[in-house]
């Protein structure tokens, strides 16, 4: 199969609603995409050869070599002539850091994937109603290399109402504008969506707490049917808050059930994202839902073999939306599959990288050495 044939098949799959899992289709497309990417991306081909896993040796998609996400900082992992690049997304960091880069020569698949996931897991009941969406992130114009800002912009264009705006400007959260927008939604009794980075929400929570008592009632109470989507870590940009604490604090502050607070697991290097299940399945266990054109595996970091179902392992993602780069990625995160009573996988949990990390005294651990250097360079 050629790349355009693979992409045409994928676009059909992404545009179909509801999602339909199809293992045979996934395996066929994954192996075809691997063959294409092996031929088109030389650093990836060299990596595969060093592992002795080339297309002639790989029979199952699980055997496709997964590149570590950090490799996007060091190699241009793209399967097209760089001159055809129309968009480059970069991981967060300062100009002095090495930043991961995802180059794209088309946005069609990328945008189809992100919209499909949002429509299936976060705005399923609001399609066509154009609700107000407020984004606690810089606009795509202000931050052209941010995949998150781009995603928000595409969502705003596709589903957002006229009052949908980006509330992070010049690294400042415009709380007055956001508060006014919430007050308006309350008056209209129409749902409003707040979407943004976790650290921006922490700043909002802190500001809301410090202004508590100055106004009557809770100015941050959201109307019924509203929801919050938060994503990403903190990386020293706010105080660190455990995910479940952040969720509970957000639910309390916005007077929402916790099921209306949805976390997104995503990364710049991926074309697809994974959302908490609780908006569409509030009674089931909270888990990340995987779009059908992705597969999430969990491997033992020591042996690199798949762990037993439900055991914790390093997260490996096969994302067919990554046609122009590399579809198989080894993340630095730990997670585990969530299964139903029949043993069928219904999603997964992200446990995080550092859970259980021991106290290390004065030795420099993990990426602290790197952070130390970056911290110094920033000053």
């Amino acid at each position, binding site marked *: 199969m050629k790349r355009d044939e693979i992409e045409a098949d994928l676009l059909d799959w992404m545009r179909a609603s509801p999602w339909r899992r199809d293992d045979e289709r996934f395996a066929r497309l994954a192996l075809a995409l691997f063959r294409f990417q092996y031929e088109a991306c030389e650093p990836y081909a060299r990596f595969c050869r060093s592992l002795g896993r080339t297309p002639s040796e790989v029979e199952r998609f699980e055997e496709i070599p997964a590149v570590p996400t950090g490799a996007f900082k060091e190699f241009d992992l793209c399967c097209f002539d760089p001159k055809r690049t129309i968009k480059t997304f970069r991981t967060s960091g300062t100009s002095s850091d*090495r930043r991961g880069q995802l180059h794209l020569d088309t946005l069609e698949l990328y945008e189809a994937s992100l919209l499909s996931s949002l429509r299936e897991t976060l705005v399923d009941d609001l399609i066509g109603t154009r609700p107000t969406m407020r984004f606690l992130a810089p606009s795509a114009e202000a931050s052209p290399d941010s995949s998150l800002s781009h995603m928000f912009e595409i969502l705003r264009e596709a589903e957002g109402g006229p009052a949908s705006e980006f509330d992070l400007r010049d690294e400042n959260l415009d709380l007055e504008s956001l508060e006014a927008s919430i007050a308006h939604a309350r008056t209209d009794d129409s749902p409003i969506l707040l979407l943004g980075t976790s650290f921006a929400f922490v700043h909002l929570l802190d500001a809301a707490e410090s202004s508590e008592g100055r106004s009557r009632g809770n100015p941050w109470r959201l109307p019924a049917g509203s929801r919050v989507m938060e994503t990403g870590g903190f990386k020293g940009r706010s105080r660190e808050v455990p995910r479940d604490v952040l969720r509970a604090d957000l639910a309390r502050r916005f007077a929402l059930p916790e099921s209306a607070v949805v976390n997104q697991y995503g990364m710049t290097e991926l074309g697809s994202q994974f959302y908490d299940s609780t908006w569409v399945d509030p009674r089931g266990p909270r888990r990340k839902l995987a779009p059908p054109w992705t597969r999430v595996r969990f491997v033992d*970091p020591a042996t690199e073999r798949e762990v037993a179902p439900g055991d914790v392992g390093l997260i490996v993602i096969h994302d067919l939306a990554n046609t122009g780069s590399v579809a198989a990625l080894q993340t630095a*995160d730990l997670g585990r599959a969530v299964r139903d009573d029949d043993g069928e996988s219904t999603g997964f949990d992200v446990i995080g990288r550092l859970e259980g990390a021991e106290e290390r*005294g*004065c030795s*420099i*651990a993990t990426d602290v*050495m790197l952070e130390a250097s*970056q911290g110094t360079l920033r000053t």
Partner: protein
Amino acid sequence: MTRIEITWPDEGTERVRAARGRLEQAAHALRAMSFEERLQVGRRVVESWTLPDAPWRRDLVAGWAADSTLHEETLREGLESALAAWDADRFTECARRELEAESRLLSPFDWTAIVAGGGVPMPTMLNALIPLVLGSPVLMREASNDHVTGAWLRRCLDAIDERFGRAFESLGFASTDTALDVLLEAPCVVATGSDETIRSIESRLGPQQRFVAFGHQFSIVVLGPGLAHDAARSNEAARGIALDVARWDQMGCLSPVVVYLVDFDSKDASEVTRQVANALEEISKRMPRGELEMSVSASHATERAEARMRASSDRGLLVEGADFTLVLEADAQPRPAPLHRFLRLMPVESVESLERELRPFDGHLSNVASVGFEADDAAEIQSRLSRFGVSRWTGPGRMQTPPIDWPHDGRPVFTPFARFTQRD
């Protein structure tokens, strides 16, 4: 019969308060001793840890072996070698050198709080002993991964002089426990841990409190071009580096995380990498690496995969042993240090470029082991890197065995814990 366990909400706080009460009583006897008497008890304590075949050392090894993920032989070798390098004479000489002055009187803090940290017991042992010698009782919060050293110290001190034993209390409680607030009321607080932990503790202290903090540090090896054509010296250095990495599974700030290769061509760099790999392989036979936690294992897997990717494009070399990982990098860019026998070797063109690469780590450098330089070059390296806060220069194989009077983080040994009164 149903057994109901009730934990009183502020049990930890009450335990700390009760310990403080006991220490107040013990302080009288401790301060009734002259400084010289206390110093002699301190000397006997150090001897009980350091003399050949000292029973207290055996006891500590046995305790740690039962409660640590480190292999028993790694523990035994680490403790034996570290404590063999300590000397009771140097301890007392150091105390006199730093503390004795005609015009100054020691004015001990009412009590000293220690927030212990880390996977190596020696700093905890010394930090606990010094305030006692100075006349200040000690209340210590155990490190969350060391439930051995505190109780062992108490037994050891009790056995040598019960006035010291009674003046030392050790408790375990979570860092989120309100008991920590009571502990941090001490007029002198000593803490070892991550920079984040140190900042968090510091933010809770008042301006009148003494704070002795040991934050994040790391150590490096610098190899010079003199090794390139000297197989015997190069192999000896490799064996020393391997020992420094294997000791404590690289878990102390004295363990090297990077070996900088100054002015090595790629062939020589590969050769040194293989020599270190061989030495680590050999050492692992008698000192296997301990079990890795999942998060550490994940960190290793991530760094190995990235190194494998670079190596496949001829950007460096990856050597994966059963108990170690070595990465010869193509450049000296800062990269994560996952510890647990994960070592990077990084080429630099010259001493000037080494200085440039290390500049971002100003204040974080602890020990440097260097070999393979002419005397002039060695002096120049010392001069250039000392400004980054290097507190000890040594050779490969000796990084984890500093003398007892080594100025940890560049500070004197006793003085930071002491308070003085001037007598005109």
